[in-house]
């Protein structure tokens, strides 16, 4: 039976809570309701209110409490109801959780996961559509993952829970019920820090993560008919970047574009372009190009949102431009 992206996250939580009683969940409406998106459905019934803790509307508190429990050996998974709300917890993430180990001389572990449903395409408007990963990409001491498939969603979350550092886990809510696949019966993990080549190709590379992976794969199918063989690299982990996989693909295809749903200016694509320019400049046959959301807010009305977001058509057009070099 095929498992949805959403169910894969739910299964990862369930399995890790069964495996390790130090794992607990904390967030808003995650208990009896099962979460605003039903990601934690059934967990409250199975594990009870001490391990699936509903909180007041206090995002900073949620992260702070999770951090306090984590430093004493617990393995909390905190939920932001929407990734947009993570701004309320910004200080606890970048100044508290991210700095703890460093300023305690390497003697403290912070095995904390913060799950945050991110992304647009659901007519969520300004405060239910954002992709806040770049805010945290700049912060040392954090790890950031952003799965695009059900397989990766499950395996990465299990790895994040077992990791001894604070991990931000951005799950793209557009994918929750739209993406599904057969998952292995046997337990598996997806390592943090490793990108995955979702499609091999020799003519150009698309580097992406999250929901735009699926647009890139669609675009690659279209481009194939035009005899352009596209390699699609799914970063999966954003911090730290898997430079090796990125650079190897650049050296193979010599043409590269970065595609992400986050806004273009200050987005992760800029850093990837810089890494490539610094470390693989002589392999490039063309400029590193970017397809990303336009530099505005995620507007609500459908024509506005469609205009802002990356689409398969925009990706194909940019790829054709790049292929001509």
């Amino acid at each position, binding site marked *: 039976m095929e498992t949805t992206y959403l169910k894969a996250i739910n299964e990862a939580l369930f399995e890790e809570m069964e495996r390790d009683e130090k794992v*607990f969940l904390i967030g808003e409406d995650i208990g009896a309701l099962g979460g605003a998106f039903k990601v934690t459905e059934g967990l409250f019934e199975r594990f009870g209110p*001490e391990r699936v*803790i509903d*909180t*007041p509307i*206090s995002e*900073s*508190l949620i*992260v*702070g*409490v*999770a*951090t*306090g*429990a*984590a*430093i*004493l*050996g*617990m393995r*909390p998974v905190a939920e932001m109801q929407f990734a947009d709300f993570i701004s309320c917890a910004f*200080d*606890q993430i970048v*100044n*508290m959780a991210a*700095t*703890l*180990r*460093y*300023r*305690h*001389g*390497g*003697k*403290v*572990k*912070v*095995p904390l996961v913060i799950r945050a449903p991110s992304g647009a395409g659901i007519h969520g408007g300004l405060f239910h559509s954002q992709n806040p990963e770049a805010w945290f990409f700049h912060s*040392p*001491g954090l*790890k950031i993952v952003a799965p695009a498939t059900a397989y990766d969603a499950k395996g990465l979350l299990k790895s994040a829970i077992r*990791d*001894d*550092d604070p991990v931000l886990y951005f799950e793209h809510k557009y994918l929750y019920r739209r993406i599904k696949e057969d998952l292995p019966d046997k337990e598996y993990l997806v390592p*943090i*820090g490793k990108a995955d080549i979702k499609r091999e190709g020799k003519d150009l590379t698309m580097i992406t993560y999250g929901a735009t992976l699926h647009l890139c794969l669609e675009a690659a199918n279209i481009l194939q008919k035009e005899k352009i063989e596209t390699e699609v690299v799914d970063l999966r*982990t954003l911090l*730290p970047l898997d430079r090796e996989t990125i650079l190897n693909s650049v050296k193979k295809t010599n043409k590269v574009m970065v595609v992400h749903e986050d806004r273009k200016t200050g987005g992760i694509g800029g850093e990837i372009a810089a890494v490539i320019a610094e470390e693989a400049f002589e392999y490039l046959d063309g400029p590193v190009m970017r397809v990303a959301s336009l530099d505005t807010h995620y507007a609500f009305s459908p024509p506005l949102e469609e205009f802002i977001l990356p689409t398969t058509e925009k990706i194909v057009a940019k790829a054709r431009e790049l292929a001509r070099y």
Partner: protein
Amino acid sequence: MEKDIELYYLMKLTREFEEEVLRLYKQGKIMGGVYCGYGQEAVSVGVTYGLEKEDIIFPLHRDIGACLTKGVDPKILLAQLMGKKTGFSKGKESFLHAGDLEIGFFGATSMLAATLPVACGAALKFKLNKEKYIAVAFFGEGASSRGDFHEALNFAGVHKLPVVFVCENNFYAYSTPVNLQMAIEDVADRAQGYGFKGMVTSGNDIHAVMKTMKKAVEMARSGQGPTLVECKTYRYHGHSEHDMATYRKKEELIEWESRDPIPRYEVYLEKKGYDLAKVKEEISVKIKGVIDEAVRFAEESPYPEGKEAMEDLYATPI
């Protein structure tokens, strides 16, 4: 050391340690900000004295006394203040922004009140695991204006967490007087809004502090939930050593200096029949030994190498 003498020793050690810190600061051996708790020793020591090793304290930048009372080695503390490799943070961070969880001492950040949610997390862990330990979170009255304070107290009240919130009300948030910070007189009143008790005590009287703390600690340890203990006190120095505190009236400082917790405690010792001159002499010799050793250790300790700035970021580097 008997308890009466030990309390005296800890308050005196705190004050003299800070005086040494100031000397080193003026010699350029301690860089950055120096935040003295001069005048607040009875809070720092009285709150922490008698806690279990596994209890965890979340001190303020001004709580050198709490650290020393919790069992921090003065040598390591001074090395920390001097940015030496032998400090808690191995030179990564200054002053009390580093801690040692092995003795239950958590390093704060400069974002005041940010430790309060973290203290709730530690308390939650104790509660979930049915451990009898507690968290003690210090904050200034200034921090009670921040959202983290309110989020933390609210959550602690809802879950009856084993935590004591200790307000060191010294009447100034840097330069801002308390009347511009809040429209109420006692921070303790805020506890009521979160479903638990707030108690006000004299922060310059170590016995008053300890008596109030005893009730709060018993509540927390017996599962009856949090308490807010507000200690009214005063810092003699500015916010940090570069601050001349010209925003305060001299008369006010004199009034508070006349309520200094240490001479006050000396009166207690004398009334209790101790030979004060002898006690003072013995304590002074002991403290001199401890501080001299700390200075020697810290001065002889190496600075970290530049490249160590890249260490200790991750527990599992990729």
